[in-house]
């Protein structure tokens, strides 16, 4: 009973307090303290995240699930990076405190941490992101079909944006005078128009819908009607 009611009470009281604090300047200092608590909890989340990573991958290795070797690599690199960062391996002392060996920054040039960033993380992340271009090209050939009116509209819009975001837009319709009555038909102008009018209208509708959804979900949480965040399947 206490296990469920105490968290509900804490959530409700703090939530209501933070809403009320917005309307009373005298409570704003306390409200800011809660934001600092959030920062501390966020920092603790890194520890929890590390624990969760260990739990998931150790289980995968112990059960010899498919791809367990990848889990081994994940844990190995995790352990190495953590040790290099925490032990400040190869970190020169801060020039302001030359007699304190651990006073320098792990991100300084020439440190082991910086080496991992420069020669492992950076090329790996850039490669992962760059590979998207190849998969998008393959998907463009196989999946982007003008099967109905909606798909044709989508394709037409995609062509205008694809051309409008390059020099091809200027090249194809650059002959239309920029000050003339038909300047809006230049591909680069059409591209901006689609983004600023159609996209903005749709995005604003979605944003307002999401905001209303968040407000209603938050109210349900504060009132204790939505308890899914407590876990346990209820």
């Amino acid at each position, binding site marked *: 009973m206490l296990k469920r009611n105490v968290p509900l009470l804490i959530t409700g009281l703090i939530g209501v307090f933070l809403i009320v604090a917005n309307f009373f300047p005298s409570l704003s200092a306390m409200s800011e303290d809660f934001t600092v608590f959030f920062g501390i909890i966020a920092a603790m989340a890194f520890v929890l995240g590390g624990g969760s990573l260990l739990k998931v991958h150790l289980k995968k290795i112990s059960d010899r699930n498919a791809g367990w070797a990848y889990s081994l690599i994940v844990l190995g690199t995790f352990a190495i990076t953590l040790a290099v960062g925490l032990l400040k391996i190869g970190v020169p002392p801060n020039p302001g405190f030359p007699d304190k060996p651990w006073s320098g920054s792990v991100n300084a040039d020439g440190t082991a941490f910086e080496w991992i960033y420069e020669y492992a993380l950076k090329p790996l992340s850039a490669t992962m992101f760059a590979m998207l271009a190849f998969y998008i090209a393959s998907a463009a050939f196989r999946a982007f079909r003008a099967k109905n009116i909606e798909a044709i509209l989508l394709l037409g819009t995609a062509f205008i944006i694809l051309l409008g975001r390059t020099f091809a837009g200027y090249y194809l319709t650059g002959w239309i005078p920029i000050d003339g009555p038909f300047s809006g038909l230049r591909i*680069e102008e059409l591209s901006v128009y689609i983004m600023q009018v159609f996209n903005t209208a749709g995005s604003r509708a979605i944003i307002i819908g999401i905001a209303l959804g968040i407000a209603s979900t938050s109210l349900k949480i504060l009132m204790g009607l939505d308890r899914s965040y407590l876990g346990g399947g209820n």
Partner: protein
Amino acid sequence: MSMVDRLANIDRRWIFLMMGLAVAVPIIYIGITGKTLPEQPTPLAQAAFDELDKLPPGSRILLAWDFDPASEGELGPMATSFVRQCCQRGHRMYFLTLWPVGTQMIQKTASLVIDGFYPDLEYGTDWVDLGFKAGNEAVIKTIATDFGQMFPNDSRGTPIESIPMMDGIVSISSFDAIVNVSAGYPGSKEWVLYAATPYKKPLLVGCTGVQAPQMYPYVPLQVQGLLGAIKGAAEYESVVNAWVRRDTVETLLEEAGVDGADAGTLTKDFFDDPEKLKSWLAEPAAGGLTEAKRASLVQAVQGVEPGIFLEAQRRMGPQLVAHLLMIALILAGNAVYFVTRRRGGAR
């Protein structure tokens, strides 16, 4: 097997190869020739430039670099141009990041632009690196009212009380503008919601192509300038480069003893007709310039730019060919689909 059947069953590795060539060939061509495609700035890129340009020199600019190496190719060039404009204009720059590897992004921009081209700018007086802080939007909410609570030290461990340019920085309200280069969460949206809108601060955003549609609804009241992907970066870069060249020429002319108004007129004349510069350099009025400054003047008028300030424009070449390939692939895919369907083979 007919041509259509071959296309319908094409091994996707051929498509990968085509995309690889579509990107690699323009990169090599631009690398060898140094040529870039011309850029016409859209109103949003021009607005980003104008917003920083209208602030007086010495204004305090908060630069939040919320991106990582995965999106550095797309966002790095706009970060470079933002810093170049701030340096040239004489703004004071306060770097911070909400992304763990954003610290390296700050270090890279600072070393490329500030150390490389503005070595006279002093750390702690003209720019400061406040580093990374965990907590996502909670960090923004806290610094909105109490800056020192989240950032008691800079990234080098120096207490902010010892940093001259931190004097008078108490909250978001202490800054004249915010520049955010963002690759996702936490990023531009959070800066709009928790800093720029409630405290009515100008916000300039540079973001990835997938984020840009989500940021358009905030333009122009909550986001004053928006650079979407490498195209936005290329437009902004071309505006900044042209302005820096004109500013450099004007400054050099003033150093040679030409007064302000005449320097402006001469600068315009030189850019309209570069031959006029040659004849002016032969006049006694140019006698006050050293050989190095004469060379800088000629380079600025001729439009010679260091490579790092052309990165975005260089990347528009591969983007052009890759986009054309995408269009060709979509058209080819649809042609195959309709021919196959007519034969009764499509599902």
